[in-house]
């Protein structure tokens, strides 16, 4: 199976990597970890480079977690800039993923919505199965 983890640097994504990552995936499972920096006005002042650097470090550390759990699996990381749901769905389509794993919420947390906007958008248009990871009791 080809498993795409759509992550950000929130605890929800960490939890998704730990829980779904620790399932008994067969040795030929391929993992991709994608983090998307949403476009903002700051793209013109160069401050995005610092943020992209942080996101890259974040996906690398998530990759290390998966690598420890599945030493022989193929793991790729990617940081893209754009609208999160579009980037995730195009990568899923282009790569032919079998499963998209996404946290129920992200950076903005649980404040207003029962389900985060990215998870919701992915559910509506996903070309494959989607696992929405929720922290029980949170």
């Amino acid at each position, binding site marked *: *199976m080809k498993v795409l983890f759509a992550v950000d640097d929130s605890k929800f994504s960490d939890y998704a990597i730990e*829980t779904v990552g*620790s*399932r*008994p*995936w*067969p040795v030929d499972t391929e993992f991709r970890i994608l983090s998307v920096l949403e476009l903002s006005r700051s793209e013109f002042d160069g401050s995005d480079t610092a943020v992209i650097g942080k996101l890259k470090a974040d996906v690398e550390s998530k990759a290390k977690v998966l690598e420890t759990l599945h030493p022989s699996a193929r793991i790729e990381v990617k940081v893209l800039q754009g609208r999160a749901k579009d980037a995730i769905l195009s990568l899923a389509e282009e790569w032919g993923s*079998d499963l998209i794993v996404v946290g*129920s919420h992200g950076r903005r947390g649980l404040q207003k919505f*029962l*389900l985060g906007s990215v*998870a*919701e958008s992915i*559910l*509506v248009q*996903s*070309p*494959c*199965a*989607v*696992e*929405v*990871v*929720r922290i*029980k*009791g949170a």
Partner: protein
Amino acid sequence: MKVLVAIQDEKCVDVLGAYMRKYPWPTPVEFRVLHVIHPVRVNSYMSLLPAPLTDNIAAQRKKAGEAVAKQLAEQLRESFPGIPVDEQIVEGEAKSEIVDQLTDWNADLVLLGSHGKHGLMGSVSRTVVAHSPCSAIVVPVQAHDRKSSKEKIHIII
């Protein structure tokens, strides 16, 4: 790990079964197959409709629902020998009943198809995922053409 598998439509049995066979379940795991029966909705003058007329339809729906759940449950028992698989049939609105079951049973995961006969554009799956107390896996299922839906509309005069 307790996994609630919500099945509404007999056409989804094979799709859900196939997906579940691919997925790497941790051990121990147990599956509960849930089917929610839609109550018979009656529109009649002054709501005076004798029960014998609606009872027959309700009985048909219950029988059909039990068959769907049983079909998937048997597939799972065959594919996962030694893993507990039980069946649950409840009556009510699918969206709310599934969520209630997740809480009552203290499920760790709910698995369901994206589309069914009822509901528009996956509204049941989206509502369940939004209100679910636990993680959810939504498996893509072909949306049914409304014209080809085999749902019977009963007219009682």
